[in-house]
């Protein structure tokens, strides 16, 4: 129960952070926009392991749509977030991601539970999935692969920095 409350609060906080603050960061400059901070995927990443897979996908879909409402881009963020949620299950079951003694039922994918190296691998892979998928959907023309990769690259670095700062300062435990 405590976990649910924490996650709902986190959801609200991340949403406001993304929509009120980070969105403005990336729209405040003139010219072509290469960078963008996508912080909200962390919400999906931090949901506990015991979350059922379909619930995870539905939460990702709903949360993505809420982000889309603010970004005025129906479906773009949602599709990326659903993809990330799906990939989360795939990634944590990979042989080299599973800890030696397996995941505990009650554990959450955080630095505290599984250590910094594990979390870094987890975060870097999933964030890359999310951002590349997001920009593929945003640009929407596969032939403009260069633009997709450029945008993804800058956004990836910035988002990584923001998320790691958050994780190291707040050290969420559930």
């Amino acid at each position, binding site marked *: 129960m405590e976990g649910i409350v924490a996650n709902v609060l986190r959801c609200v906080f991340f949403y406001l952070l993304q929509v009120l603050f980070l969105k403005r960061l990336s729209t405040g400059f003139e010219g072509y926009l290469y960078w963008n901070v996508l912080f909200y995927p962390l919400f999906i990443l931090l949901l506990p392991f015991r979350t059922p897979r*379909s619930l995870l996908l539905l939460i990702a879909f709903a949360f993505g749509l809420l982000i889309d409402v603010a970004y005025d881009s*129906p*479906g773009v963020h949602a599709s990326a977030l659903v993809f990330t949620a799906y990939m989360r299950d795939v990634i944590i079951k990979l042989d080299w991601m599973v800890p030696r003694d397996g995941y505990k039922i009650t554990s959450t994918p955080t630095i505290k539970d599984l250590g910094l190296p594990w979390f870094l691998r987890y975060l870097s892979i999933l964030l890359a999935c999310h951002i590349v998928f997001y920009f593929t959907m945003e640009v929407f023309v596969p032939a403009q692969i260069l633009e997709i990769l450029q945008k993804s690259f800058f956004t990836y670095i910035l988002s990584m920095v923001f998320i790691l700062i958050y994780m190291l300062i707040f050290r969420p435990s559930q």
Partner: protein
Amino acid sequence: MSNLLQAFSKLSGFALFLLLEVICFALIIRFNSYHQQVALSSANKYMGNLSETADEFEDYLHLNEEVERLRAEVARLRTQEGNAMYRDLDTAYASFDTIAQHFIYIDADVVSKTFLGRRNYITLNRGKKHGVEPHMGVVDDQGIVGVVRSASNYHSRVMTIFHPDARISAKLKGTGLFGSLTWDPDEQDYFHMILQDIPTHHTPSKGDTVLTSGYSILFPPDVMIGKIDDVKKESGASSHFIKVKLANDLRAIRYAYAIKNLMKNDLSELEEE
């Protein structure tokens, strides 16, 4: 709502993932004007490509028909050429038709051919019903082919120029000189023919063009035959021995045109007298 959630939870993870992505995709295309444009224009592009490919394929299916149609067109156009006409420019007889049709081209498919021995024949899929008769000349688009020997209702047999009996009246372009063109059956050379009876006072050179003379009833004048490949002057002989490289390759022939001479009877009446 809980029913809906239950229904969703029964789906396997991947199916649900696909379903949600499809919904997202629909939303993206439906509600984002940029994405809508991209989707529409690429759909147009791919549909355009697809229908172009289908069109090409269909063209290919109709290739035979098209070739037949074009051949008929070629026959019609060659019939209108100057050398297929009888011209009388003498104004004293201006009361008669000064231009009359002299030759008609009948297009035909080559249905069988053999180039093996001394006597080479081909068969055309045109016969009496189409106006083909014995003693008509046959040409293809590049050169001459032979002479019709016999015709049934729907087919005709053509003695090719590669036959010991073939004698084609030919002339050297740009001169008034003419001779007869024959094939040496002993050499089995399907690229060359021998031009005889060109008098020695004129020395033709390699590369000169050889055309039909128009003195026979078989071919109209000025139909391409080939180019001179080699000229030999035998001592004591009164004519050159000229090797002519043919313009066409008869062994690769697929289509031909039989030439009907409309003034044949006119001429033969004259000869009988």
